């Protein structure tokens, strides 16, 4: 008997057929298009509608963008050149870019100063943002950066930031010396040392007012996107520590401290930022000692910082609440005191959980800095609505200017949120 059934069956195939190609509709582009764009009739309609709208938008915007004119002196000249065809008048950007970025009063020849401060910001922020890739020594530069940036942007003698820095360092050294005896003694000693240093340093700074002095620029001359950036960076960095303190206060077992924090947070979160800016603009002056004259930018920084610290406090409270009770108990059973357990056990974990929330608050805050245009400060939006759209040359140029505002804000905010997602992945210590 043979293994093939040659005797009983008429024909038996004894070799494999070559593999056939899959049908054209099941491979490559065709399959992708069918699966992703036209899987059923309702999705097909949606796709066609979407393509139609995209076509409308692109076909409208493309000639407008391509016919754009970059080198005239006014809108009227743009219209003359365009002769009724669609086209953008980007000359407003080439002519007023400095006002949009730095405000209309910042001295032209000093633009390198805020620009340098902006570039150095990345160097200073790098060890905080990318702690695993940047050498830790750069942190010293980060500590110096606030003083350097102040000197670069506001100008004046370098002695003022140096005295401020020396005061803080002196206070810290005294605190460390006395902390061994008692925490309170260290704290008060440190504050006293800082105050004495500042008091004496004040005279020195006055006496040496020309030492390494840059031309001073008063706060009211700040404007444009630079103002948004200053407000955003300063307020976020100030509100983070305040927010942590408020969150801890709200979790505290001491009723009076807890209620002070609760009332502060809920009050600030219940009112719009604009009312707080009204407070900065018209009310805060009544509460300051008679004769003092804080400048507006400082008052605005105070109010925005209060505002964002309340929001950050709520985010961090969420992180604290999400920690299992065992973490608190473990810290206690190790014999750590309150400050140690918070600093070493609780806060690192709580902050890690709250990173996405903190970043959301930071992005929201940066966007909210444009609200200062309502109290007639000339930030980016204030510049557009005020001096530029009100000028005779550029009255009526809307799309180019608002497009510029979108182009300025979008990369910053989008970049920050992408960074936070990256950081979340980096900090994810769960093993799967």
């Amino acid at each position: 008997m043979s293994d093939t059934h040659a005797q009983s069956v008429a024909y038996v195939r004894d070799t494999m057929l070559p593999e056939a190609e899959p049908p054209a509709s099941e491979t490559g582009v065709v399959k992708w298009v069918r699966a992703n764009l036209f899987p059923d009739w309702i999705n097909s309609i949606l796709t066609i509608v979407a393509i139609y709208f995209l076509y409308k938008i692109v076909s409208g915007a493309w000639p407008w963008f391509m016919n754009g004119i970059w080198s005239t002196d006014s809108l009227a000249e743009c219209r003359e050149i365009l002769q009724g065809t669609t086209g953008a008048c980007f000359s407003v950007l080439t002519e007023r870019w400095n006002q949009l970025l730095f405000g209309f009063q910042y001295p032209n020849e000093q633009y390198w100063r805020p620009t340098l401060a902006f570039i150095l910001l990345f160097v200073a922020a790098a060890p905080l943002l990318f702690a695993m890739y940047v050498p830790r020594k750069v942190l010293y530069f980060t500590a110096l950066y606030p003083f350097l940036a102040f000197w670069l942007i506001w100008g004046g003698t370098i002695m003022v930031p140096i005295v401020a820095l020396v005061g803080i360092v002196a206070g810290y050294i005294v605190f460390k010396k006395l902390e061994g005896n008692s925490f309170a003694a260290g704290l008060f000693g440190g504050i006293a040392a800082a105050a004495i240093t500042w008091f004496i340093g004040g005279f020195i700074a006055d006496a040496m007012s020309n030492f390494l002095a840059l031309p001073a620029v008063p706060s009211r001359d700040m404007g444009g996107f630079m103002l948004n950036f200053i407000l955003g960076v300063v307020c976020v960095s100030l509100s983070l520590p305040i927010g942590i303190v408020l969150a801890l206060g709200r979790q505290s077992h001491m009723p009076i401290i807890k209620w002070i924090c609760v009332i502060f947070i809920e009050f600030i979160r219940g009112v719009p930022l604009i009312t707080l800016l009204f407070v900065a603009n018209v009310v805060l002056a009544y509460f300051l000692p008679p004769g003092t004259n804080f400048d507006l930018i400082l008052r605005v920084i105070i109010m925005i910082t209060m505002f964002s610290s309340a929001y950050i406090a709520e985010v961090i409270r969420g992180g604290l609440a999400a920690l299992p009770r065992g973490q608190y108990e473990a810290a206690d059973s190790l014999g750590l005191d309150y400050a140690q357990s918070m600093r070493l056990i609780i806060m690192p974990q709580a902050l890690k959980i709250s990173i996405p929330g903190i970043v959301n608050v930071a992005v929201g805050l940066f966007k909210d800095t444009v609200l200062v245009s309502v109290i007639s400060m000339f930030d980016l939006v204030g510049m557009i609505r005020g001096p530029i759209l009100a000028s005779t040359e550029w009255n009526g140029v809307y799309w180019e200017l608002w497009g510029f505002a979108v182009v300025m804000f979008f990369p910053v905010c989008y970049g920050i949120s992408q960074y936070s997602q990256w950081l979340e992945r980096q900090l994810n210590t769960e093993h799967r």
Partner: protein
Amino acid sequence: MSTITDPPSESFQLSQLINDTRYRSYTFQFIAMILLIAAFAYLGSNLVSNLRAAGLNISFDFLGEPAGYDINQRLIEYDSQSTHWRASVVGALNTLLVAFLGCLMATIIGVIVGVLRLSKNWLIRKVMSIYVEIFRNVPVLVWILIIMAIFVAVLPQPRDFRGEDAEASMLLGSFAFTGRGFYFPKPLFGPGSAVVIAVFLASIAGIFVFRNYARKALFERGQMIPTLWPSVGLFFIPAILAYFVMGQPISLEYPELRGFNFQGGVYARNSLIALTFALAIYTAAFIAENVRAGILAVSKGQTEAAASLGLRPNRIMNLVILPQALRVIIPPLISQYLNLTKNSSLAIAVGYMDLTGTLGGITLNQTGRAIECVLLLMLFYLTFSLCISAIMNVYNNSVRLKER
């Protein structure tokens, strides 16, 4: 040999206040209290001396004085002889109007976009995520101003509706969308219309009773009663019958072009429309993300279990996914509503007379009473925020998972 049996005598020492955990918290609270009182006393004394120097005082009498300015968009009667208080109330109602319309629109757009971001369709998914990212990452004030500019530039002016071959025409002969605002037909209530409205409200109540009854019948006796068509019938038929029985008491007043502008009908100013629209699509981008996260939070096994029971996709969405996703979505949704309400204070940028425009704007500038106005303004917004979160929390508790 002697042993020490007595504990050391409990003598109170001053250092215990800071070193003994029993007393330390009292010390800290006492210090905090003193600091707080000192800060308030300092600010208060500054306030008193500043006010004395400026010859001012704190008084709310100005609220009873005539405001002397006009408000072009209002829900209640108001003229320039009305009081400042009345102006504030008009502004507050305008704020609530924008907040209500904006929340409604934002929810609808947000839910649709959130669901579409999870669609199988690649193009739709990409378009929706571009929309969400662009709107979330640019300040709302910029969007309000852009949309206001689009409204004024793109929509036709009332004069374009004039003439034989007009450039623009009214939708269905009764809706006009112009750069100055939208005009709608206005219902006029004649005598007897109260009966029609009462019948209509009663039939809505009837629908609820009927659906409750149907659900009970299903759960207790396993009896399926169709609810869709009877509900639709209940909704329309009694009201229409009453309308004709009472002799057609409700009529519509159509907007008409007279002279340079439309007359009659309901007029919603362009600032109201643009502000509502801008706030809605800005907030919708955030709501869409919440909705997407909520849907993704429902585990895949739920969908598969429902599919293996033989439910159709839309019933899986309605009966299994959404009720569970809702519990995740509602809390962030509440804070989005609050944000929208607070952002509505940006109305001042497009000249819509909301609370910030009346009380915090013209009234403040006319009377010069900054402290009182800003204080009242904050109290108004605080009340709104607390009310919205209270209402939404009640709703949140009703949809929350009932655990035993």
